[in-house]
């Protein structure tokens, strides 16, 4: 049963800045650089752009981006909440806008100096009387203040229920760094690690170690989404948005989804996966690879289960058996992920999916037709299935 959105829109252009620890320029400059590259990649100009989609925690207002690009009329601008959980949501927003005729070309962008300016890895805190600030305060007041510690609480319980160990988690990091080692765009290019390196890395928030945590990075990634029909006539081989979905369950909070029976970050993943497969008319076995959001390497395990690549509780064995490396049954994060390449809030993962489907990835998998891409789990989240032309 194909959904009404399936196949209507395509990624026609892609652009990115270099990824670094100190970009040396403003976030707005990063944004317009990446978007300009994406537009040129598609063979379009700012004059063709009539929609913009991004997600919260980006500091670049759509109208300022447009003014700097020299563009004119925007029909649609949308910014989805929940930061990294919304990484794939701009694709859904763009696809809906294009499919309904609201827009002809939507730019999706992410541009941050989250290493050299306002860092993302430190303690969080929100002031004020709003519901979100109150809930954040309710947790931070007890000394639970970093994303790592919030995720650690969920993963400790996951270990208890599945028997997974820190050594099992190591396989995600080691595989990511193995892929990053051959990716010149990766911060950890040429720097693979071993299981022992992971096990010897310092504890950050038990059970998470330093090498379980993604990087902080400066950089930007942008995409141009048009109708699939129009994309066929543009410069690049179209990457079809076969499915895109968001998901939050009744008890999903922002990394503190602690008040539901299963506190592993799985429920929202399952909800998104069900939508994606139904919309695409595809199954997990139809994916040649997956880009799974690795804000924390261990969070990849519940995603493997929630998206149906293995049974509940079996991800620990799946990652140990070599399945997630290039050459395995389901290569994961072939660019090195956010652990190895850079942390551009999931958008660099979408870029890797595009490269794999175009056949231009550095760690190219053979005969790629469908790629599942996910956003941050443990919070209201999103995902997509990107495909080659049928």
């Amino acid at each position, binding site marked *: 049963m194909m959904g009404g959105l399936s196949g209507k829109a395509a990624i026609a252009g892609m652009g990115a800045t270099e990824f670094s620890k100190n970009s040396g320029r403003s976030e707005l400059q990063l944004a317009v650089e990446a978007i300009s590259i994406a537009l040129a990649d598609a063979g379009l100009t700012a004059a063709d752009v009539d929609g913009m989609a991004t997600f919260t925690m980006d500091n670049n207002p759509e109208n300022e981006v447009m003014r700097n690009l020299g563009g004119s009329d925007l029909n649609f601008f949308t910014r989805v909440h929940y930061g990294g959980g919304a990484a794939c949501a701009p694709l859904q927003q763009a696809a809906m806008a294009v499919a309904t005729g609201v827009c002809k070309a939507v730019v999706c962008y992410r541009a941050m100096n989250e290493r050299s300016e306002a860092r993302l890895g430190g*303690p*969080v805190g929100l002031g004020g*009387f709003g*519901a979100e600030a109150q809930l954040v305060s309710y947790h931070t007041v*007890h000394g639970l203040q970093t994303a790592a510690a919030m995720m650690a609480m969920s993963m*400790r*319980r996951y270990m208890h229920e599945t028997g997974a160990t820190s050594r099992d988690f190591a396989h995600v990091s080691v595989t990511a760094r193995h892929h990053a080692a051959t990716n010149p765009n990766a911060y950890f290019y040429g720097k693979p690690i071993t299981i022992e390196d992971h096990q010897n890395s310092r504890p950050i928030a*038990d059970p998470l170690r330093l090498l379980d945590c993604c990087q902080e990075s400066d950089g930007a990634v942008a995409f141009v989404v048009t109708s699939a029909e129009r994309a066929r006539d543009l410069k690049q081989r179209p990457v079809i948005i076969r499915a895109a979905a968001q998901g939050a369950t009744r008890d999903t909070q922002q990394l503190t989804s602690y*008040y539901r029976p299963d506190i592993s970050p799985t429920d929202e993943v399952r909800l998104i996966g069900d939508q994606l497969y139904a919309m695409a008319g595809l199954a997990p076995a139809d994916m040649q690879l997956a880009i799974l959001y690795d804000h924390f390497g261990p969070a990849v395990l519940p995603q493997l289960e929630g998206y149906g690549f293995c049974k509940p509780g079996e991800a620990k064995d799946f990652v140990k058996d070599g399945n997630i490396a290039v050459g395995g049954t389901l290569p994961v994060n072939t660019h090195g992920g956010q652990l190895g390449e850079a942390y551009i809030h999931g958008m660099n993962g979408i870029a890797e999916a595009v490269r794999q489907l175009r056949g231009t990835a550095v760690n190219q998998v053979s005969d790629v037709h469908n790629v599942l891409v996910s956003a941050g789990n443990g919070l209201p989240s999103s995902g997509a299935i990107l495909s080659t032309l049928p």
Partner: protein
Amino acid sequence: MYAEAGTPAQAKQTSYPAGRDFAFFFEGLAEGRLLVQRCHGCGTLRNPPGPMCGECGSLGWVPVDVQPHGTVFSYTVHRHPPIPPFATPHVVALVDMADGFRLLGPVSGIAPEDMAIGLPVRVEIGRFEHPFPSFRFVEGA
């Protein structure tokens, strides 16, 4: 591993949530009481606090005293970066309370290596770490 030194962490939140849905909890602690919302409509205890009962839709609720003990459902030991005013390492537990709701809080007096899921803990109320009334979990039923 990372060439760049990290910036010092600043604890960004040292005051309690004093909004209309949460204040009762800390006001209760000031009186030495552990309070949780009980729904007028169906009697469900709910935490974290909120204005409406997800079970029955009632907007009516009353804070009730609850038993101050439970068992550890999960926990983490925060080690980096330091988050003053808490000492490092800092243990935080998610506890299944005897009355059937879940409560998050800091843990004192237990070595990190002795923390375990299933451990019986109880609430101690006082002024710990903060200038305002707070609570912590300690070992014991």
